[in-house]
């Protein structure tokens, strides 16, 4: 199982911060596509940066079961 985290606008659109995907291994880019198919309201996920286990990662990196994959919308701290 891969745990997905959504924040800010994405979290609000999905109605939840956490989504579990029942998979042992999946590329980050494929997770992104899967989420947009399942939650069409998440179009803004295209401009989010993926992170695996709290570190930014590219779409072609594979997440494994137990990993946490977060989609980071453009940040606005400070």
């Amino acid at each position, binding site marked *: 199982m891969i745990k997905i*985290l959504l*924040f*800010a*606008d994405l979290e*609000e659109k999905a109605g939840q911060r956490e989504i579990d995907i029942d998979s042992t291994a999946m590329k980050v880019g494929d997770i992104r596509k899967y989420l947009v198919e399942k939650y069409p309201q998440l179009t803004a996920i295209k*401009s989010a*940066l993926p*992170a695996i286990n*709290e*570190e*930014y990662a590219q779409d072609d990196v594979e997440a494994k079961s137990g990993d946490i994959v*977060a989609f*980071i*919308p*453009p*940040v*606005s*701290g*400070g």
Partner: protein
Amino acid sequence: MGYKKLFEITEKEIIIQEVVNKVIDRNAGAINTFIGTVREMTKGKKTLYLKYDAYIPMAEKKLQQIGLEIQSDFPDAHVAITHRIGKLKISDIAVVIAVSTPHRSDAFTASRYAIERIKEIVPIWKKEHWEDGEEWIGDQLEKTPYPSGKPSKEDLT
């Protein structure tokens, strides 16, 4: 108080002196602090209040990364950053950056670098609440963030 958490996301009010105390050093002659407060008017629109949210563990890691980046340029620098989340009123303090260095020029440069870098790589989001609506704010720099690179010269002017 043996342990000082240098890079911190908190829901509590930030006490400037507490952040500054973390970087005071016998061989630092200069401390620069940058304090970000909630501004009422932005682009002609009146903010009632803000809400900040964060991916807390990653945000603290990224703040720490900024500290390390500064120390790679200025080995004698001490850096502490606290960012508040939750609901903030106008004039409330959202972030305090403190950098101490032996000489003042480096403290200014490093503090400036830290705030620009926060706006690029630290997973914290601001939601503005106005009388007629609310919105998550993103991409304040109006460009794609670049988590692994460093800001270009022109970002710092």
